[in-house]
């Protein structure tokens, strides 16, 4: 009996520091979500869409504030002037030729943005995944030389588009290097992978991301951000409907 107690005490003593510092799945996801939220940001970028018909490049300027507001204005010839505004609860599209403002809702949100592997809906939704998903820490893996936590997130509400998400989050920087999105019955739908990052005062920000729709073959979308500026002053009206139609 004494021996057994001694063994338990020894194990606890050895493991105590790591047990005390171990993060739960929820904490890891929360940290990862916080990493992606900036007070403001501004960037130019391009979206390279590859499918069986070839490759198409769309360029854009983007601005964001917090986790809920963003504006994308396309600058490439075919879609010049088209704008996508995301506010706290809504998503709006503006077509300059028709001078038409459309509130995206229902099935419209499911449509692909400019034929890419990103749906308009992928741009909506809060960053607070912890309240919508049950998180299970599956283990650890190395992704492209980075030690990552592997987490399986299972939705506890019906209102999120992806009922299951498997994410690989960097143990040091809490950057999500890779994510897989599944249907309720466990079919892989989409895969997101970070190809390039930039360091902003110790925070890593993805500047090149590959998104592929796994239900389609030979398609992928690469989002590249250039000239990314973080925490810069942005006009308060930038994310208003009035500004959208100007």
């Amino acid at each position, binding site marked *: 009996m004494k021996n057994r107690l001694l063994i338990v005490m020894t194990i606890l003593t050895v493991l105590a520091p790591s047990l005390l510092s171990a993060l739960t799945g929820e904490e890891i996801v929360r940290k990862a979500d916080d990493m992606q939220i900036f007070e403001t940001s501004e960037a130019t970028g391009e979206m390279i869409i590859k499918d*069986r018909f070839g490759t198409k490049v769309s360029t854009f300027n983007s601005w964001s504030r917090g986790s809920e507001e963003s504006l994308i204005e396309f600058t490439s010839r075919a879609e010049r002037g088209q704008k996508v505004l995301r506010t706290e609860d809504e998503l709006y599209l503006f077509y300059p030729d028709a001078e038409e403002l459309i509130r995206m*809702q*229902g*099935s*419209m949100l*499911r449509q692909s943005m400019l034929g890419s592997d990103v749906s308009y809906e992928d741009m909506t939704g809060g960053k607070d995944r912890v309240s919508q998903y049950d998180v299970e820490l599956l283990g650890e893996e190395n992704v492209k030389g980075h030690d990552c936590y592997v987490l399986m997130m299972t*939705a506890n*509400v*019906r*209102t*999120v*588009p*992806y*009922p299951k998400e498997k994410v690989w989050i960097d143990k040091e920087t809490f950057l999500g290097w890779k994510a897989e*999105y599944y*249907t*309720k*019955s466990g*079919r892989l*739908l989409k895969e997101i992978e970070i190809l390039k990052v930039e360091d902003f005062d110790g925070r890593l920000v993805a500047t090149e991301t590959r998104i592929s729709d796994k*239900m*389609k*073959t*030979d398609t992928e979308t690469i989002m590249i951000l250039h000239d990314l500026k973080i925490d810069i002053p942005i006009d308060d009206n930038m994310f208003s409907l009035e500004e959208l139609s100007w």
Partner: protein
Amino acid sequence: MKFLISLAFKNLTRYKRRTLITAGAIAFGLMMYIFIDSMLAGAEIESVRNLKWFETASARILNDEYWENRFQKPLDLSISNPDRIIQTLENNGIRATKRIVFSGDLILNADDFGEDGNLAATITAIDPVRDFRVFGFGTTLIEGRFLEPGEDAVLLGSWFAEDIGAEVGYWITFVTRGNGGFYEAMDLEVVGILNCPNPNVNRALLMMPISTADEYLDMDGAVTEINVALPDNADVPMEVERIQEMLNGDNLTVMSWEAMAVDYLALAEAKRGGTSTILFLIFIIAAVGISNTMLMAIFERIRELGMMRSLGMSDTKIRLAFMIEAAGIGIIGSAMGIVLGILANLYLVNVGIDYGFLLRDMDIGYRLQAIFRGVWNPGTMIKAFFIGVIISTLVAWFPTKRALKMDIPACLRHQ
């Protein structure tokens, strides 16, 4: 008067060839009128039947807010207790069935279809036991078998199957959104192909068992619609009101097929307007033919007309004689037209005309897949007969008037 009738009759028999040619023009016009009227009336009757049997049923119960959002096919605007409602309806002698309609992306894989692809599609999840009591799909199976409850299977419309190159035994993947908005994908085996006579349905039909859909979509027993079959002679608006009363307080609404097919009915109305114009033009052509023939007939007989006037016959009587003659032509032509119309309609009613080559890739509004069949409409024939006679009589007025304007010596010298 008797003399005038006898004169007109003699003139008709004296110029047999002219009489027959003119009467032939009238007969052709009338035959076309009867034929086209029969074909369009047949198309309308069959379209309405195919609408009710394969598209709208006689009436539909929906969530109050569903209809205005119907293009988005929202699963959350549903009916939560369909079985209780169906039971109530059946207790009142009304046949009903539940359905879930949802849209998504149909994924085709190269293993079965030769190449990968995807397209937007809509699935109708049906109750395999009850659905055929309300809709007419029971007799449309051309390949494979019907659905069984709970299986991961799908039935396709034959045109849809042809368009995507599907055969029985192939598998399709359908990616959609469940109740609430989550993504779901289902692998479904094509177990049967239906040839639905309603082209709009046959072009896009995908059907799966409702129990399978319920599980994938997390519907918890809710459905998006309950369809109701009413007898052909039922007073639909009254029945709709009666069903609405039965559902009182459930936030549900009942829509008649007319209310759901308002677009089709407007189109049918517009087509009727267009058809009347075509029929009017047919009559104008016939009328010009008759008028021209009468003009020639009168000019041929101007000397005869001068002689009658010089013997003291009044212009009114002469005009009347020519109009009776024209009416005679009208009666002969209309009678021939009715006979020809009946013969043509016999073929149209029993065999019909196959416009499948045209309707396969074109939506003309009618819910007909290929064959246009006619109907018997005695009212149209009677109307056509009288119109034929009246028009022939009236068009004789103008050439007679012109001839009567000439003085008697000019008439007698006319060559």
